């Protein structure tokens, strides 16, 4: 195909490009306008929805979970602030209240577990403390995780330690746990015991003696575990936070 050449053709081309540009920005503008309209509608609907279902949000664990999932998928954190757009939902209030209660339980059980508590025990205690009505009982592990994560803003005095199989420990004493300490907790939970030893760590994690001893000594020093010198083979390190009689004790 023969291309047109010459000054006329160039002018024509330029003119066409200009037209496309105009059309493009026109389209963009209308899209933006439409989107802000949609957002406005969304906001109004959401506020209406929240107003109507405020109690439902506090009561219904399934709803909360779905809402959290929705927010996560669009990259919004409804708990980021107590003020503003999301506060109308009352979602924040619910979790802030829960955070405070989590701190209370951690402090109340510190005397026996040294500041390490399983999320399951935490949940049981919270439910007991929150009263008998159904809305207070329906606290899910996801709710607790969301609320406990908020407590990170207080620094490293509060952290969540995943120990595998969907199990978590909440640590409520200052002093961050290193990767090795977390690995010790995971290994202990994994074996389904409340105790661990240097030789178990050597076998299962391929650690050398020094590394295992250093990690365990640190956890003794932090008051997270107790030593048992009367085992026939070697010293056992026991975690009250994973010991069932301790968990169920008042």
């Amino acid at each position, binding site marked *: 195909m023969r291309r047109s050449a010459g000054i006329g053709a160039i002018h024509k081309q330029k003119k066409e490009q200009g037209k496309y540009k105009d059309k493009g920005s026109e389209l963009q503008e209308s899209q933006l306008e439409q989107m802000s309209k949609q957002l406005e509608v969304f906001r109004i609907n959401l506020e209406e929805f929240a107003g109507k279902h405020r109690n439902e949000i506090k009561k219904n664990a399934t709803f909360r979970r779905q809402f959290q999932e929705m927010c996560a998928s669009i990259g919004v954190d409804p708990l980021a602030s107590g003020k503003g757009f999301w506060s109308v939902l009352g979602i924040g209030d619910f979790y802030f209240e829960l955070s405070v209660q989590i701190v209370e339980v951690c402090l109340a059980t510190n005397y026996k577990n040294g500041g390490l508590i399983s999320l399951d025990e935490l949940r049981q205690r919270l439910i007991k403390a929150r009263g008998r009505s159904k809305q207070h009982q329906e606290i899910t592990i996801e709710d607790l995780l969301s609320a406990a994560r908020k407590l990170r803003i207080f620094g490293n005095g509060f952290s969540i330690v995943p120990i595998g199989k969907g199990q978590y420990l909440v640590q409520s004493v200052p002093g961050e746990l290193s990767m090795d300490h977390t690995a010790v907790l995971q290994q202990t939970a994994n074996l389904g015991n409340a105790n661990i030893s240097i030789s178990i760590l050597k076998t299962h994690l391929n650690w050398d003696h020094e590394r295992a001893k250093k990690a365990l000594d640190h956890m*003794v020093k932090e008051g997270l575990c107790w030593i048992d010198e009367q085992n026939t083979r070697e010293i056992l390190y026991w975690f009250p936070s994973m010991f069932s009689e301790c968990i*169920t004790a008042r």
Partner: protein
Amino acid sequence: MTYSNWPWQYSFPPFFTIQPNLETRAKQLEAWRSLVLDYHRALKLAVLDVSEAERSELFNNAKLQRKLPSEGIIQVLESLAKNGNAEPCNKAKTRWYIYWHTLPEWADKMYNWAQETGQTNSVCTLFEIMNASDQDFYGLNEDVVIKALRILEGKQKAELILDGENSGVKFF
């Protein structure tokens, strides 16, 4: 009589090893103190013999195959003594009185009882005190009763008359 009110710590093996971490040890000793007092209260035992204690179920959990060594038992007793809940019977500290109520507490209880039952200004025998069936000090060891009454004596609230089986006390 058997004891059944074991705390969770009693089935926790490291409870029987004195803990190196001071904070943990403080929690451990606190749990031991309340267990020892509750055990003696429930079984009405006034005296603990250290060499026997090593074999008693209190410090020796046969099921776990764990026992608190005698140094541990001494530590528990010393820490009870600090709170007025124990006192060595002899210089060698091989036998100890265990007070689940401290002596001043016992003294108050006896004095209140005497007042409530209208026994002030008259003599009652130690036997009567130890057989006041509705009282905490029912069945209490005679040595402990006398020690508590001595405290009242020091406050001029009682006078002891020690005469073997006829020993008694006059409350004022």
